[in-house]
Every structure is written in structure tokens, then in C-alpha cells.
């Protein structure tokens, strides 16, 4: 790998990890709110 490939790997990995975690929280929150019913 050249220098740029390490950099791209790092940036993409960060995006995938943080984006995935973000989506996981949003999805699980929606499911939990649905199961609880209206506040």
C-alpha cells in the first residue's frame, strides 16, 4: 500500500464505524419508542 491508501483506509473506516454506530442508535431508539407507544 502507498501512503494515500493508508489514509483513505483510515478515513473510510472512521466513516463506517461512526456512521454505523449512529444508524444503530437511531434504529434501536425508533424500535424502542414504537414498543413503548405514544408518550
Amino acid at each position: 500500500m502507498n501512503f494515500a491508501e493508508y489514509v483513505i483506509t483510515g478515513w473510510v473506516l472512521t466513516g463506517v464505524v461512526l456512521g454505523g454506530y449512529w444508524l444503530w442508535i437511531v434504529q434501536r431508539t425508533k424500535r424502542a419508542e414504537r414498543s413503548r407507544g405514544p408518550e
Partner: protein
Amino acid sequence: MSDRLLKPQVSKVLGWLALASLVVLALFGLWGAPPDAVQGDAQRLMYLHVPAAWIAYLAFGVTALGSALWLWPRTRATVWDRLAGASAELGVIFTALTLVLGSLWGRPVWGVWWVWDARLVTTAVLFFLYLGYLALRRIPSSPEARAKRCAIAALIAFVDVPIVHFSVNWWRTLHQQGTVFNAKLDAEIHGVMAFTLWFGVLAFTVLYVYLLDRRYRLLALDEDREDREVQQAIAERVGAVTP
């Protein structure tokens, strides 16, 4: 008792602000900032590695604070235990990112993925300490007992945070000394590179606050569901034994 840290409108604004600032960070980090004179493009990983490490410190600091406030009888409230739990999870994620990004940066610059260096080892220990903390939170018990043992564990684990930070001063390490928060408090980075680094710290901080609020809310909803399930089970048991 509130099951949110922030108002929903504030949380939504923070989410969009975090997303926008991360896009700007990517533009500056990958194109706007010049390549380093010595390390070339490999140094662009610094704009993620340093902010991720900063958020790990912040997250574990918030966990320690929440734990201390829960242990202190005058301030004891569920909010502090939840805050500590939510923040610890974020801290573990950002510590993992710090380690992986550091490894990706180390391979082209040092020639190795990993070295038994004081900074790297103490950071790995930090990761496993808080992974243990998260495992401790999952052990079934009464909310009070769980909060107490987790608060004590969080305060013990936090001892490693200053050790990680000062490891580059206390021991001879391959890892460089602090660029910004060094012993002289004299930042050794300037211009667009300094701007990008500080912007990265800001963007990650906004993202951390947003995710902390969302994770706190999810913890509150999960606890509420567990309470309802217990109440339902008790009601069914009482109904079964009542003639």
C-alpha cells in the same frame, strides 16, 4: 425524571451540525491542508487520530464525573449512572478508533503496525479496562447494585487516562510527544494544518455530545422496557396464585 439530556430540537440541530462539520473536516483533512514536509500524505490521519483520542479522554472523564456524582449521596440520581454508561460506550468506540488509526499511521511512518511502546500499551489497557466496564454493566442485578459497582470500576479505570496522556513524557517512547498539549504548552503546528486539527477536535466534540444524548435516550428507553417487563411478570405471577 427526564429520559433525555437535550431537547429533541436541540439534538436534531446538533446532529446536522455534526454531519456538516465532519464533511468540512474531510474536505480540509484530505485536500485543504498541505501534505506534511516529512511524512507526506500519511500525516492526514492525524486529523482523525488526535480528535478521536481527545474524545476518548473526554468520554472517560464524563464517565468518571457521572460515577462520582452517583456515588456522592447528596447528588445520587439515575441520570448520573446512565450518563456514565452512555459516555463509556462512546469512549470505547473512540479509543478503538484511536488505536486502529494510530496503527494505520504507524505502518507507513514507523514501518510497523504495532510496537510495545508505553503510549500504545497504556491506550490498549484503557480500551480493555472500559470494555470490562461495559461488560460489568451487562451483568444482571438490581439497578442500585449495578450502578454502585460500575461507578467504583469507572473511577478505578480512569486512573489510566493521565497515565496514557503523560506516558510520552514519563517514558522514552517511539510515539511522538504532545503536539498541542505538550509540556511547554507551545503548539508545534501552524496555519491550515493547525486549523484542520482544531476543527477536527470541534467536529468530533459536537458529534460526541450528539451521540451521548442519543445513547442516553436509548438507555432510558431500555430501562423503561425492562421495568415494564418486570411489572408485567409480577402481575402475571400474582394473577396466577390469586384464587
